[in-house]
């Protein structure tokens, strides 16, 4: 005999098992509550005439959450009602988050499709004022700058993580490095850009702009991300594996290079990809360090180098004549940038699946 049965007399005769029996919220009722919530949301703007989407969505969500809880509480009991309520809240939150994402992708694809043609990928912007032109120089620039940045920051980051996890222990140096990495994670990207610019001005004189300077700026932003993610992955490796190797008389450095890192490599690759994805879309630091070039520049050591984000920015603020041509180029370049990140993720996924230790879930 539970309190619930006492409160809610039903046709079921009270029995020792009655606390284990409960009603079920039917599917029809569930859909009804959903439609009711939508209708209630509509009511919030209909009297005023024009549709108010924000109010519709907010009122609808709140009405649905309250409705499903009340109905479930009456039919199914308190614990199930709480479950329904939390499920409703989480589902709605997911919808709210997913909506802008879908919207962005849709906008970029629909607006970017206009210039998604061969000319766009094969030509650059040299002596283009109005229509036509392309982004081959910006694609090459993005790949070069990001690649050089990765070449600098990935070894640095992974080695730092190896030191922190395998050698640093609780030493003061390790603590200091961890603190510095945390600080570096928070550096605004424009500050990293100004740092790299200042560095190259000191070395090569005022007004120096090059792909390398841009890569240095990106490396400053990338390194802490690589350190953090590699550190997490290395810490996940069970100590038993290290001990198994050490107990075979394997020196520590071999244990790290042949046992620990290979076991963690798939996670490290994922972390590196995330770090690359983080910096590939950076605009501000590249604006000051790599600048804008109208033509192709394949030498990161010399001269301005255009990257996709900077290209998009300039096509937007200086679209040329007619302005629609420049704006179309900006949208398509944005689409290309998104596609590049997607390709990068797919590649990393494939690579980490291949390298994943077999037999580990």
């Amino acid at each position, binding site marked *: 005999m539970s309190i619930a049965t006492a409160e809610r007399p039903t046709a079921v005769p009270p029995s020792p098992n009655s606390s284990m029996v409960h009603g079920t919220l039917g599917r029809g009722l569930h859909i009804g509550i959903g439609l009711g919530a939508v209708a209630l949301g509509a009511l919030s703007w209909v009297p005023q005439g024009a549709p108010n989407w924000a109010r519709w969505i907010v009122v609808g969500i709140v009405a649905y959450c309250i409705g499903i809880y009340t109905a479930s509480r009456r039919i199914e009991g308190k614990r199930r009602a709480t479950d329904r309520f939390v499920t409703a809240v989480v589902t709605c939150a997911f919808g709210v988050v997913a909506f802008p994402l879908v919207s962005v992708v849709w906008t970029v694809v629909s607006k970017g499709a206009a210039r998604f043609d061969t000319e766009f990928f094969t030509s650059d912007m040299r002596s283009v004022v109005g229509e036509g032109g392309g982004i081959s120089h910006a694609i090459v620039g993005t790949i070069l700058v990001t690649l050089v940045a990765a070449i600098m920051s990935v070894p640095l980051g992974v080695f730092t993580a190896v030191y922190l996890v395998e050698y640093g222990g609780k030493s003061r140096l390790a603590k200091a490095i961890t603190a510095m990495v945390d600080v570096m994670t928070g550096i605004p990207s424009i500050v990293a850009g100004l740092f790299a610019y200042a560095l190259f001005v000191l070395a090569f004189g005022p007004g120096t702009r090059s792909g390398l300077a841009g890569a240095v700026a990106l490396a400053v932003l990338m390194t802490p991300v690589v350190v953090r993610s590699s550190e997490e992955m290395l810490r996940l490796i*069970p100590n038993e594996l290290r*001990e198994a190797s050490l107990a*075979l*008389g*394997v020196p520590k450095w*071999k244990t790290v290079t*042949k046992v620990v890192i290979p076991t963690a490599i798939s996670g490290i690759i994922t972390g590196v990809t995330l770090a690359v994805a983080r910096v590939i879309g950076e605009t501000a630091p590249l604006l000051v360090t790599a600048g804008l070039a109208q033509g192709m520049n394949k030498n990161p050591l010399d001269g301005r180098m255009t990257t996709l984000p900077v290209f998009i920015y300039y096509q937007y603020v200086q679209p040329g004549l007619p302005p629609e041509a420049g704006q179309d180029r900006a949208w398509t370049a944005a689409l290309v940038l998104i596609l590049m990140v997607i390709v990068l993720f797919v590649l990393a996924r494939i690579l980490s699946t291949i390298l994943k230790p077999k*037999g580990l879930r």
Partner: protein
Amino acid sequence: MSDIRTTPTPPTTPPTPPAPTRATPPTGDAPDPLTYDGPVGPMNGDRGMSEQTEEVVAVDDLRPSMSATDDERIIVRDLNIYYGDFLAVQGVDMDIEPRSVTALIGPSGCGKSTFLRSLNRMHEVIDGAHVKGSVRLHGLDLYGPGVDPVAVRRKVGMVFQRPNPFPTMSIADNVLAGKRLNSKRIKKDEAEDLVEKSLRGANLWNEVKDRLAKPGSSLSGGQQQRLCIARAIAVEPDVLLMDEPCSALDPISTLAIEALMNELKQTYTIVIVTHNMQQAGRVSDRTAFFSIDGAGQPGHVVEMDDTTTIFSNPREQATVDYVTGRFG
């Protein structure tokens, strides 16, 4: 190590080994194969060098056949084991007989595993852990100056409580890990021979011979543990330490491992930590009982004797209580 002995010296009885013509340790013992800068012994030396070091007598040559001498025993004297400032195990004096199984029993937290790990210097892998006292193997103090812990671990292998094959490696690579990772290049046929020999030694060959390229973690728990034993014996140690090797296994696999221990003790000195007193009774020749007076107190050896004596007629009342289940 017997394949690399350099001089066919007849068995010599220590402590009068053939006097090396080169720098001799002050004790007059056999040349330290474990020291960094000592004579080029069988362990730290390139195998190709052995021709030039004829005066160096391989450790194995000091073994008279089957009869134990002080030089073959692992002799532990006044060993205090610390974690930072905390004294975990106090004053261990123990002689471990060669080519036999020695079991360490006692309640949880009494320092059996800690002691076991100090026998191949795995203890100090933990931050702040250190040891005072001496552990002598073949007359050499493993904690003496200039002794390389990495070389010690090649002589004193270890099997852990939970099977831990390397997840990135195949079954064959797991067996070869000790050799390969020690940057010894081995020829393909030699490698195959070693894999077969080690897996046969661990009674695993027939079960895995058709899938040597499969990952080690694809085996069952008991097979994984035998794979770990194969991996440990592939580096040809003298001593095999086992830290509760069966506690994660089912009775059938346990039986397989125990049978294996019986075979291995023909060749290796085995020290096993176990919580299972029947197991200690079944597999071991000698048993040491560890105990602890209370929380925060250091563990110590209560008594050590032949296994039959420990289980039938021990000297100490504490041992009687423990082995009959009245305590712990």
